């Protein structure tokens, strides 16, 4: 039984973490919300000290009606969707393979996980130059070896190239989590199904996949949150050109490159709302586990 004394001590010990995170959340959020209703162009002399002009929902309307808005939503959906499909499909296959008995499993695991530890700027630059460079990249050599014309990856096939780079970074994450989930599967159930003559595909569909459903949900939600925010990969490869401008990259450009803080902040509020919808979904899954 916790005493009254330890209860108040507990509250006191939680305080620093709670206060810090509350400040980290509320202060910038309030500022973003405030800026989003203002005309704020620092390069033209607008500043908080001189007072900012109230423009109502003008920034919100302009952000939505700008010609780059819908393409950026499209690019975001294609990148997030593409990476999710690739990492989950290959993640499941790879996890099943790695779960089989084999020699040197530890080494294979290490090789598969490695890309997750490569910092985003390194993986983007290595792929951009050493693999996707149209004259000296490995892929260009490979294409030439088969007599094909090398592809200008990051300009002609910019979205697939970006999806490839980001999938390479996130496949280890999906594989690792799905492998952990598969390993917790009761092998007797599978053996029983095998003895009853259930074919491989049926065993996969009716036993393995349902067992993985929770892990898959978690992978989808966590990856979506991170994928919506990818920045360095675009920053060092295309800089937002060739149709790779995602919603968050568009906001970044509005705020820091064209220094239209009001407009960028309105975009930021949209992004925050979107992220919160996803967050609520993730909370439900994680929260359920907390009770168990």
């Amino acid at each position, binding site marked *: 039984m916790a005493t009254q004394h330890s209860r108040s001590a507990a509250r006191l010990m939680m305080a620093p973490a709670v206060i810090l995170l509350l400040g980290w959340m509320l*202060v910038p959020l309030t500022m973003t919300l405030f800026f989003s209703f203002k005309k704020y162009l620092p390069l033209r002399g607008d500043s*908080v000290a001189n007072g900012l002009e109230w423009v109502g929902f003008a920034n919100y309307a302009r952000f939505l009606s700008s010609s780059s808005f819908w393409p950026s939503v499209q690019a975001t959906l294609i990148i997030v969707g593409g990476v999710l499909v690739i990492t989950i499909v290959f993640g499941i296959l790879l996890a099943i393979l*790695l779960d*089989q008995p084999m020699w040197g499993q530890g080494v*294979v695991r290490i090789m598969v996980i*490695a890309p997750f530890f490569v910092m985003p700027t390194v993986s983007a630059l*290595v792929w951009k130059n050493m693999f996707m460079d149209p004259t000296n990249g490995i892929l260009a050599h490979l294409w030439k070896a088969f007599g094909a014309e090398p592809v200008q990856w990051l300009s002609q096939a910019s979205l697939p190239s970006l999806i490839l780079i980001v999938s390479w970074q996130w496949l280890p994450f999906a594989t*690792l989590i799905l492998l952990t989930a598969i390993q917790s599967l009761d092998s007797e159930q599978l053996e029983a199904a095998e003895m009853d003559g259930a074919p491989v595909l049926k065993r996969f569909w009716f036993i393995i996949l349902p067992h993985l459903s929770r892990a898959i949900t978690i992978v989808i939600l966590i990856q979506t949150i991170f994928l919506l925010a990818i920045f360095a990969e675009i920053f060092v490869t295309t800089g937002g050109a060739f149709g790779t401008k995602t919603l968050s990259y568009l906001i970044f450009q509005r705020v820091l490159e064209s220094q239209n803080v009001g407009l960028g902040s309105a975009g930021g*509020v949209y992004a925050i709302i979107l992220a919160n919808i996803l967050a609520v979904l993730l909370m439900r899954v994680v929260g359920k586990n907390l009770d168990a």
Partner: protein
Amino acid sequence: MARAATTQRKALNTALAWLIGFLIFFPILWTILTSFKTEAQAIASPPIFLNFDWTLENYSVVQERSDYMRFLWNSIILAGGSTILGTMIAIPAAWSMAFVPSKRTKDILLWMLSTKMLPAVGVLYPIYLLFIQLGLLDSRAGLVIVLMLINLPIIVWMLYTYFREIPGEILEAARMDGATLKEEILYVLTPMAIPGIASTLLLNFILAWNEAFWTLNLTAVDAAPLTAFIASYSSPEGLFFAKLSAASTMAIAPILILGWFSQKQLVRGLTFGAVK
């Protein structure tokens, strides 16, 4: 008969898994190999795999040209500082949530996690402005604080899931024997939780090391870590594949080694204990 079949199947699995593993690992391997080539060999057509003249020249050029050691030192300070600071703040919080849970504990935990989902780009300008006002732009102190705050929810969560596995009776016994709260946490809980705390430190060090939004946007020269060091190679000047590879290898090597040690704790940390 059955045995032969399983051996055959095992051999097939092994071959397939090694092939896929090699393909996934290849970009990293190729980067490491290229870092030991001369620039001419780095772009040779067809590519040279192993039989080139190994040289360490690129490493010394990279160090001279862009002062690698300074960026490395900044990465260590930022990742190490933010992780240690975050853990010091998180241990008491995780302790109280794990051992003195109240009705609101679950809500607080979930709320903490939700701050992690705030899109950074949505609050970029306010933070930028605050940093200018407070003189924190391009300072290590400012970046340590930001990286600590973005990882604090994960640190609290990881510690909480580890602490929950420690039987509360042991702590109660210590309390009965007259241990103060400070003694209880410092001498009873912490030693038992060392493995959990160690993996929390490790994972968050890795996450902070690879963070590439705030480190790129809030640093310029003085506080720039390795993420910014590599980004400075994005506009090529002449032949540079071998040098890019040497710089990349130096930026990822420390964390690859740490990462391999932490792979067991990775799943748990990254799924907030939802998959174990």
